[in-house]
């Protein structure tokens, strides 16, 4: 990190205050990370080690929960579905959203600005207001429990998200880039695909990954629009957590939860620099 910290207000503060802040920061991050650590730890316990007081931090680890619930809760099939849907929705939204974001940022179109405001407002639409009609229409068209239905449903919140992020990204690029390309005989498409897209690649990639994460985690549409064949992991977790008949099945909950969380965390940390930048820009320029 090369950028200097803004210290409020004395930079020549005593080193004790600085040390206290560092200690406080570490403590807060430990508090925030503990629940995840505890979930992962619990997923490697057997029943006896889970239901015991005091809670156990050291025990003989077992993979029993993973082995059992991979089969029982149909997790492999759900994992495949979640990957298909997340990748499909992410790719569709990044292509469509990036082009629209470029149009909003650079291509002067009459009425496009209004459309941009409408898109921004659409982020306030409660998903339940979409879930009811989507369910009814999908049922009529025989599209319930199909991957494509979920992919299209997810595009309703992913496209606005991508559009908005990429719009502010494109606005930060110098205008001369495409202008000189178009003077050199490039078409508008040529300028976009040969000049703009390549230099935006890191930003595009992180936006794609974050879109896929949002799709990976989605619950409401998945609950409503799928039943058996195309159902995703979050639906399984909701089922396990809400299973009041069999009581708390913490082994299943933590094992499936860990499977859900690990890949996402890995991807998010891979693109963390871009992710933070995108978040900051989304908030300050949105």
């Amino acid at each position: 990190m090369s950028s200097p910290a803004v210290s409020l207000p004395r930079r020549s503060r005593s080193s004790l205050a600085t040390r206290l802040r560092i200690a406080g920061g570490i403590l807060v991050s430990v508090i925030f990370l503990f629940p995840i650590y505890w979930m992962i730890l619990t997923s490697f316990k057997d029943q006896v080690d889970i239901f015991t007081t005091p809670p156990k931090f050291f025990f003989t680890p077992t993979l029993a929960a993973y082995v059992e619930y991979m089969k029982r809760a149909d997790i492999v099939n759900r994992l495949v579905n979640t990957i298909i849907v997340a990748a499909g929705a992410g790719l569709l939204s990044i292509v469509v959203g990036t082009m629209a974001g470029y149009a909003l940022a650079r291509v002067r179109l009459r009425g496009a600005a209004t459309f941009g405001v409408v898109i921004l407002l659409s982020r306030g639409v409660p998903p339940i207001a979409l879930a009811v009609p989507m369910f009814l229409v999908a049922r009529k068209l025989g599209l319930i429990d199909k991957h494509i239905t979920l992919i299209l449903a997810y595009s309703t919140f992913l496209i606005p998200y991508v559009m908005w992020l990429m719009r502010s990204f494109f606005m930060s690029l110098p205008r001369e880039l495409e202008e000189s390309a178009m003077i050199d005989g490039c078409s508008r498409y040529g300028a976009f695909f040969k000049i703009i897209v390549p230099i935006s690649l890191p930003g595009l990639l992180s936006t794609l990954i974050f879109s896929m994460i949002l799709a990976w985690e989605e619950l409401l549409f998945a609950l409503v629009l799928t039943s058996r064949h195309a159902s995703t992991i979050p639906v399984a977790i909701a089922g396990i957590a809400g299973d009041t008949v069999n009581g708390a099945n913490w082994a299943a909950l933590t094992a499936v939860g860990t499977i859900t969380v690990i890949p996402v965390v890995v991807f998010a940390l891979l693109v963390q620099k871009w992710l933070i930048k995108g978040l900051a820009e989304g908030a300050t320029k949105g």
Partner: protein
Amino acid sequence: MSTDTEKATGQTSPLRRRGRTTDLMVRWSFMFPAILLLVTMLAYPIFYTIDISFSRFDIATFGAAEWVGWDNYREVMSDYRFWESLRVTMIYLVIALPLQVVLGFAIAYLINVEWAGRGVIRALFIIPMVVAPVVAGGMWRMILDPLWGIMNYWLGFIGVGPMDWFGDPTLAMAAIIIIDTWRWTPFIVLIATAALLALPKDVFEAARIDGANWWSTLWSVAVPLLVPVIAATFVIRWLGAVKMFDIVLAATYGGPGKATNVINLFIYEEAFRSLRFAESAAMAVIVLVLTMVLTGLFLRASRKLEELF
């Protein structure tokens, strides 16, 4: 009026008219896929919801039957469960949103000290932010379990408890707010960290030279500079929080009784468990209008705040 291309190339060719039409089509083609998808998947469903909300829902054909005017709205408005659910949602929003924004900026300040581990700490805050909300709900349900949960075990050390987190209505709401705050504060921390880093340093230097103390620097220099970001963060968080569903579903399922039955869960239950689609549609439209009005007000207020400072 010349088009973009003409400006760029400075040419006025004899094929100008044709070229202009083609160019217009090319330019709109960037926008077209998004418009098409959002009209079919976003605008059309909203109009369909409005249509159902004014109709009798026929379970046999599974579609809207005859027009019944405001009947569904009247029925929903006289349903005490709907009001109760709105009240619960409001309590959640009124407590959780300010809590998360304040906590987020406070933590951002805390972790913004210049030292070797700063980048690592900041990266670690991404982790809770990408845990699926439904997983967060389930995971915390285990941690807060009255009998075996590690939270009550630890609270026992300081002489608190045992707390019946999911049996007591107030504690259940507290649990929901704790889980939601755990899941969303890191998001605000990351935005706030970037905002703090972007603050102009010379202003603080000047305040220091003028002998301003920590507190007055915070209130008369830092906060006014941060107002636009704080307002934007609040609006973004608000847009997410009104969609509250996953965490409640996994952690309490609206219970005990209806103590945490937020509006989205209530509408979901009414539609997909009780199959009362017309009433659900009416509720969804009411919530949609409420959300839009409040979002508009917040955007307005944040613009006013920006002018003020």
